[in-house]
């Protein structure tokens, strides 16, 4: 597996130059959409952290998904596929460039552009008399699952972009939805096995369960709720499972590209 740092750099540079206009137009459009969303949803509370975090997360997932589908996918038609396949770089270099671009460079660019805007909005919010806490990015990244989930999401989109030839967006949405809801369903099943729910707080009868792989497990019934925090060991095990999925997906992308014909 031959990888030249110089060619990798050339690939990333080429991509940023070719799509400079799209980046320059895309980010203001993203900010405008975000502002409209905030105006309609903020209500009388001003810009609470929850609103800003939702907006930030939705923005990064949606825009990076589109970025991976449109900018990294050069196999949409025969001419662009020929152009991409004939570029003198190894498949490993092309895979690495796509991974670095989608999973490192794009989120960094997003943070550098969007985060200052959210800080500015927080300031305007205060000027207007709302005293909400400043949106701290670190609070979001501190959640161990966030980055991991983002990487898995990006990797799946990358895999879809090199797997599907037609109706890539539709098929990718279906795959992402199936995986997302399938994972949630599996989480519940696993959680029920891992945690002794019936004995929680000595109160049997908690029927409804809400869980994500990395956060506390919430249990509800009509009048009460409780939550169990997974142990460090359990959390590490969950995370390891997700992180192990990443190289598997990337290797699959590598082989899909290697086998690609026009």
């Amino acid at each position, binding site marked *: 597996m031959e990888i030249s740092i110089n060619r990798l750099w050339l690939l990333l540079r*080429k991509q940023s130059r*070719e799509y400079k206009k799209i980046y320059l137009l895309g980010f203001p459009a993203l900010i405008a959409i975000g502002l409209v969303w905030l105006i309609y949803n903020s209500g009388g509370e001003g810009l609470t952290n929850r609103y800003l975090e939702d907006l930030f997360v939705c923005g990064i997932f949606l825009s990076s998904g589109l970025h991976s589908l449109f900018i990294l996918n050069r196999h949409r038609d025969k*001419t662009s596929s020929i*152009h991409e396949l004939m570029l003198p*770089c190894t498949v490993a270099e092309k895979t690495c460039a796509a991974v670095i671009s989608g999973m490192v460079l794009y989120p960094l660019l997003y943070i550098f552009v969007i985060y200052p805007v959210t800080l500015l909005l927080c300031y305007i919010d205060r000027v207007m008399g709302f005293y909400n806490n400043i949106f701290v990015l670190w609070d979001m990244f501190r959640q161990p699952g966030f980055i991991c989930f983002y990487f898995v999401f990006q990797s799946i989109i990358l895999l879809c972009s090199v797997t599907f030839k037609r109706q890539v967006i539709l098929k990718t949405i279906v795959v992402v939805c199936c995986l997302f809801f399938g994972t949630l369903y599996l989480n519940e099943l696993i959680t029920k096995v891992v945690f002794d729910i019936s004995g929680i707080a000595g109160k049997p009868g908690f029927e409804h369960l809400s869980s994500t792989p990395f956060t506390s497990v919430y249990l509800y019934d009509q009048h009460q709720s409780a939550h169990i925090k997974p142990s460090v060991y359990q959390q590490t095990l969950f995370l390891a499972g997700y992180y192990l999925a990443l190289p598997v997906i990337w290797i699959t992308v590598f082989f899909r590209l290697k086998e690609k014909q*026009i």
Partner: protein
Amino acid sequence: MISIQHLTFGYKKSRPVLEDLSLELKPGHIYGLLGKNGAGKSSLLHTICGLLFPGKGTVRVTGEEPARRSAKLLQQTVLLPEEFYVPNGSVHTYVDNYAPFYPTFDRALFSRMLAEFEVPADSDLQKMSYGQKKKMMISFVLATRAKVLLMDEPTNGLDIPSKRQFRKVIAGTAAEDQVIIISTHQVRDLDSLIDHVLILEDKRIIIREPVERITQKLVFKQVNQPTELIAPIYYEGGLKGYAVVGVNHDEEESRLDMEIFFNAVLSEKQQIVPLFNA
């Protein structure tokens, strides 16, 4: 340089486009690849550059398997497809982005060819006409100084002066260590350029001959009546009489008319092909 042994390729296994095709191509020549629509010319070019993988048989280019798509081979094998993709940006941006991938890229030659084709270097690629884009791509492909140049219908979309310039730049840049394969239907545009003729028919190469050998074996004449040539193999009527192909019994000198030759081979295969296998 290019060695193809018993190549079989098809988009569906049951319907091969190329079957048991063997071919050796040496550097220092410009090969004209001729064939009917759907004969498999583009498929052959795409197999040589690794865009398609052989079903059976082997393809080797400078000793390497193109299907492996090594960076080294891709630096030395360049394809100019009939329909091509051009990214956003100007000609300058294109060269700045893509030339560094080719270690032997000659920027001075590229600028010279652009000037010859009268393509402004600062123009936006998306705003250029198809012909201008093609001239830019031809200039780029030649400036890579790659060992293997594959061109699929390079003169399609070029105006008449540009076709002449195309011949001029190819003749001026072709090197002794290069193999150039030009697949074309516009044989009249290129018959002064091509020194070897490859005819693809019935899923294999039925003619692979240098121009001199063709004119040694066959004579090409323009006559008023086909009977003026003793035992013509093939003739085509036109406004100025008949273009006739006959066996060159008397070692007459004539100029190869590639279009007539191609038509003659296709319609009188049984008579012509054995002449070259003898």
